[in-house]
């Protein structure tokens, strides 16, 4: 019980949110913002694994997001609703309640496989050239989707609303909010465990000195595979959730611009700091919303703010430290494997 304090805290927080949403004490808009915060947390912390911890420069995260979004959406629409291309529902619509997380994970798996498109070249390529490969993968995914007419091509794909409605017909709970809370927590938890284990720190060794890592016994290829697949799989998860919030997706959502947004969150939070990524995702989403009334000016103000931030604090909010390093008392709440050296019996 004591060891999982952070977990319990998060569970309580999630239940509170769900309760509040269930009783319609939050406006739809506020709920939407909360959900986007969750998704942005998944996106930024998963990209941090590559750009921060492994020190590669991936700028195609939105591509993997797209894969997850499309695969899970198509699966759900095909399985649980009647659609003009996919025909009548394959399974009983109410089973969506149980199978929804599985289709999300299927989308994540597809995205993880797409991650191989970057992982394999990364064996031989590093740095800027790998960055370009990620960029190319982003474009390839986007224009592939644009060219598949069965799923709407450039016009986009919809019908996910109905899936959610089917789920709500069984139990009236804010389903999407529920799954976003679950998967956001899960992502951060998995990533935290990964980067604080000796296994996961292998990717930090790759960042610091890849040659030394390989020679001193780190199977760098396997670690790169693991990191890229984990990261892109999580992006796929975020994509799937994202698609079901809006009920509609189109390839234009998953452009380099989206990838840039995620990158900005990673750098804003600090490369190699998980809590930094979480913080910056919250902050960034809120800033985007606060500045929304500015319309066109918004995208003038944000880059300007970021440029100023870079000049003033180039390492981001947290640098590569964690919240528990800054406020050691937090360790009581969140298991602190990091730096907990002599504590082991």
């Amino acid at each position, binding site marked *: 019980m004591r060891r999982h304090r952070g977990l319990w805290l998060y569970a309580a927080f999630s239940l509170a949110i769900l309760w509040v949403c269930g009783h319609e004490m939050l406006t739809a808009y506020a709920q939407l913002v909360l959900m986007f915060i969750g998704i942005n947390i998944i996106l930024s912390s998963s990209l941090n694994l590559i750009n921060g911890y492994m020190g590669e420069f991936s700028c195609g995260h939105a591509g993997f997001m797209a894969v997850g979004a499309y695969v899970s959406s198509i699966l759900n629409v095909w399985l649980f609703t009647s659609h003009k291309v996919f025909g009548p529902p394959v399974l009983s619509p109410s089973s969506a309640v149980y199978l929804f997380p599985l289709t999300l994970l299927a989308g994540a798996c597809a995205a993880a496989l797409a991650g191989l498109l970057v992982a394999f070249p990364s064996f031989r390529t590093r740095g800027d050239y790998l960055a370009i490969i990620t960029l190319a993968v982003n474009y390839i995914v986007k224009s592939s989707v644009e060219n598949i007419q069965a799923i709407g091509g450039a016009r986009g794909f919809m019908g996910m609303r109905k899936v959610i409605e089917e789920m709500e017909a069984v139990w009236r709970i804010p389903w999407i909010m529920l799954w976003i809370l679950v998967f956001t927590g899960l992502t951060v938890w998995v990533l935290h465990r990964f980067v604080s*284990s000796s296994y996961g720190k*292998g990717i930090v*060794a790759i960042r610091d000195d890849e040659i030394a890592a390989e020679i001193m016994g780190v199977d760098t290829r396997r670690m790169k595979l693991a990191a890229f697949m984990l990261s892109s799989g999580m992006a796929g998860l975020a994509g799937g959730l994202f698609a079901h919030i809006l009920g509609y997706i189109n390839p234009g959502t998953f452009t380099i611009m989206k990838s840039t947004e995620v990158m900005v969150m990673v750098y804003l939070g600090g490369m190699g700091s998980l809590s930094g990524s979480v913080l910056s995702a919250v902050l960034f989403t809120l800033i985007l919303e606060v500045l929304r009334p500015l319309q066109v000016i918004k995208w003038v103000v944000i880059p300007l703010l970021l440029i100023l931030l870079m000049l003033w604090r180039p390492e981001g909010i947290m640098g590569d430290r964690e919240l528990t390093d800054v406020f050691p008392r937090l360790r009581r709440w969140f298991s602190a494997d990091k730096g907990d050296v002599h504590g082991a019996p």
Partner: protein
Amino acid sequence: MALLEIRRLTHFFGGLRAVADFNLRLEGGELLGLIGPNGAGKTTVFNLVCGFYKPTEGDIFFLDKDIAGLRPHAVTAMGIARTFQNIRLWNTLSVFDNLCIAQHFRLGYGLGDVVLRTGRFVTRERHVRRTAEELLEIMGLRHYAQERPGNLPYGMQRRLEIARALATQPKLLLLDEPAAGMNPGEIDQLVETIRWIRESFTLTIWLIEHHMRVVMSVCERVQVLDFGQTIADGPPEAIKQDPRVIQAYLGSEELSHA
């Protein structure tokens, strides 16, 4: 059975023949030196043995298994570890983590265990940490456990490199100029350490060194390379007198360090 056997090892960089027809039979427990003027090909021999380059020609047998062409981490897993001529530590990780990650290939658990924190993960991770702590202790680095390697004094960084190599639990330890850049006091300490490691870890050590004092005082046998070719092989005293060795070093000041 020889620990390491190298036959007719040759390596080219483009047109440059860095190592030519190199032969070696290393028995367990030996302490062998490899010397030669700058650019003779010493580091290249190490790189070939540890799998960083694939030899143009020749065989490398470690415990009767052909290891030429294996990837470096696999060679390390078989029991060959090394240090680097220019220190290559992982500088954003703590000293302690440096020692943990060197055990990466024998962690014995995978991604699933990490996420679910299985029993295997917990026991293995504890074992890894204990090994790292022991090494900190015996190498006199305990004080620096949470420091970043870059903040350590130079001599300590060299020690850490040796400690990291030992963390892989090697049978053969390759040291590439461990005394480079050290002051005389640090060198004395290093000689002690090398002797001590060899005894307490029952290791075979193969050492590249320019400082003759180190070579003469720890090595039992010395090989001399020049332009990739082996020009002498024998006990240190004999090597020192060998006219071909003196010829090779002529003009370079290195022998006079002795």
